[in-house]
């Protein structure tokens, strides 16, 4: 696996801008994506996963804006981007798959048209060539009867098929990076298994990097190489997948793993993390997990920093780092 980072995010801050008031949603996130790897971003609902991924594509919704930080795509610095530059990146260098396969495709156009549009926005080729490429792509993602499906409307396809089409659409311009925001959450387990298998094999074949956003640790275990764990807009732990499962560091990560029901063990009660995630805006100084943390101590009212751990992970917790130095 090449070690070179093709995408680097530094202290990215994204938030709601309302006049002069700025409420951060993503608060100083830094990570990098290496060539050919699959990076998982996990965290609870509302912790800012989607906002992070949208900000990478320059697709932040109205009212939400970049506050600070840098995004480097290879040699490019994405902040200075004009609208035109963004358009060149989107769909060409980076592609995205969204959470809801049901609503990600425009209901009023055929698959052929939607894929064609994607190709034409970056390349000037003939319709026949574009269609040939579309067909090939649909075959690649394992769609049966691809020539028929080309002329279908999204509603004529099942959820799993639509998600495949979305993947085909995202990959048709041969991007370096694929961002997948919860690509299987809306699907059934059996279909989810199909899609995950597909992504795995495609990544191998096409040699791209994937950022996979999910709240399902099972999915992470399935296909990710490395994971960052987010909590309330911050990254609190970054580890290889194996490390994360074998040696979780942050109390939140630990709690999360423990609260998963397992097929293998039988417990009458699951362990659980008390309390809920703080809402953005209500966040105060110090560790954001301290209210729910069984190990909270005085130090936790100060902002913890990401510190490296001996096993190669990084963690944002006062339980670590300090000892490390000793």
């Amino acid at each position, binding site marked *: 696996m090449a070690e070179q980072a093709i995408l680097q995010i530094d202290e990215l801050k994204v938030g709601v801008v309302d*006049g002069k008031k700025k409420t951060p949603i993503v608060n100083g996130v830094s990570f990098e994506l290496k060539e050919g790897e699959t990076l998982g971003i996990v965290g609870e609902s509302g912790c800012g996963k989607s906002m992070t991924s949208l900000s990478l594509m320059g697709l932040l*919704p*109205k*009212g939400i804006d970049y506050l600070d930080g840098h995004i480097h795509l290879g040699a490019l610095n994405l902040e200075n981007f004009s609208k035109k530059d963004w358009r060149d990146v989107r769909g060409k260098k980076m592609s995205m798959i969204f959470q809801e396969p049901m609503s990600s495709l425009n209901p009023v156009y055929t698959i052929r048209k939607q894929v064609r549009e994607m190709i034409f926005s970056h390349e000037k080729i003939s319709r026949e060539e574009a269609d040939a490429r579309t067909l090939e792509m649909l075959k690649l993602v394992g769609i049966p009867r691809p020539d028929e499906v080309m002329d279908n409307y999204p509603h004529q396809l099942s959820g799993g098929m639509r998600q495949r089409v979305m993947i085909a659409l995202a990959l048709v311009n041969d991007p370096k990076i694929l961002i997948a925001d919860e690509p299987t959450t809306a699907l059934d387990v059996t279909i989810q298994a199909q899609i995950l298998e597909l992504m795995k094999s495609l990544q191998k074949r096409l040699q791209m990097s994937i950022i996979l956003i999910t709240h399902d640790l099972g999915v992470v275990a399935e296909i990710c190489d490395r994971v960052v764990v987010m909590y309330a807009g911050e990254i609190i732990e970054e580890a290889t997948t194996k490390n994360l499962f074998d040696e979780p560091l942050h109390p939140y990560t630990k709690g999360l793993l423990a609260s998963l029901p397992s097929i293998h063990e039988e417990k009458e009660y699951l362990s659980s993390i008390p309390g809920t995630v703080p809402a953005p805006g209500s966040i105060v100084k110090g560790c954001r997990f301290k209210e729910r943390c069984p190990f909270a101590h005085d130090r936790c009212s100060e902002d913890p920093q990401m510190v490296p751990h001996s096993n190669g992970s990084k963690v944002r917790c006062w339980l670590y780092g300090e000892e490390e130095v000793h």
Partner: protein
Amino acid sequence: MEQVIEKKKDSAFQRSWKFIKKNPTGVIGMILTAITILSAIFASWISPYDYTAANLKDRLLPPSWADPLGQSVYLLGSDQVGRDLLSRIIHGAQISLMVGFFGVLIALIIGVFFGLISGYFGKWLDDFIMRVADIQLAFPFILLAIIVMSVIGTGMWKIIIILGITYWVGFARLIRGQVISLKEQEYIQAAKAIGGSNFTIIRKHILPNVMSSILVLGTMYIAEFILLEASLTFLGLGVDPTIPSWGGMLADSRNYTTTAWWTAVFPGVAIMLTVLGFNLLGDWLRDRFDPNLKM
């Protein structure tokens, strides 16, 4: 202590300023509507002259500030029979609001009732009510107005009734659509599961949830009704001429547009501002209540 109070005041002021800045159209709507409602309520106190006092000597005097001869004492001029235009416009607010409010009330009561049962019970009842609505929609309003008025005569209350029985369809369709989608909501299922009767479910769970749409449509219809009253007067089916209705004033002054512009302009402006007020208010309410528009 003093400082604290001042601070509080400041923040209240700031808060309202913020509100205004955030919802400029809503605030304008509220102010315009408030002006109309207040002038309707306090008409007798604030109008400078008796609005019924016809005085042939003072016929068609221009607004006092625009009178080259300096005869006029009427701020907005006088009308065709020498009555103070301002006083009539102020009193006209009563009529316009009555027509708007009670007309909407009737339409609302009929429409909401049928919309609720049509949407909730569905089946043949729904079919039946919706066909009746189709028939109502296909029957031209003006024709209905003429038929009703030639049978029972003209007058403000009759106009109100006609508007009410014509426009119930709007409410019924809106409510029906909402009820149908509400019915699938889990909390309605839940209400059934905890033993709620149909009546309870409609009253406690469905009605409150369609209330905001009712309010929104209501404000828009108030605006529309004010205009319809004017149109009816234009066709000679309006309220009687002693009643100072804006529509009537406008319709009757249409031949004076060039010679006594104020008789046509000021009632027009009154209608416009009021209708605008209600529409802006309705828009704002909709933006507030429509979950689809909330980001």
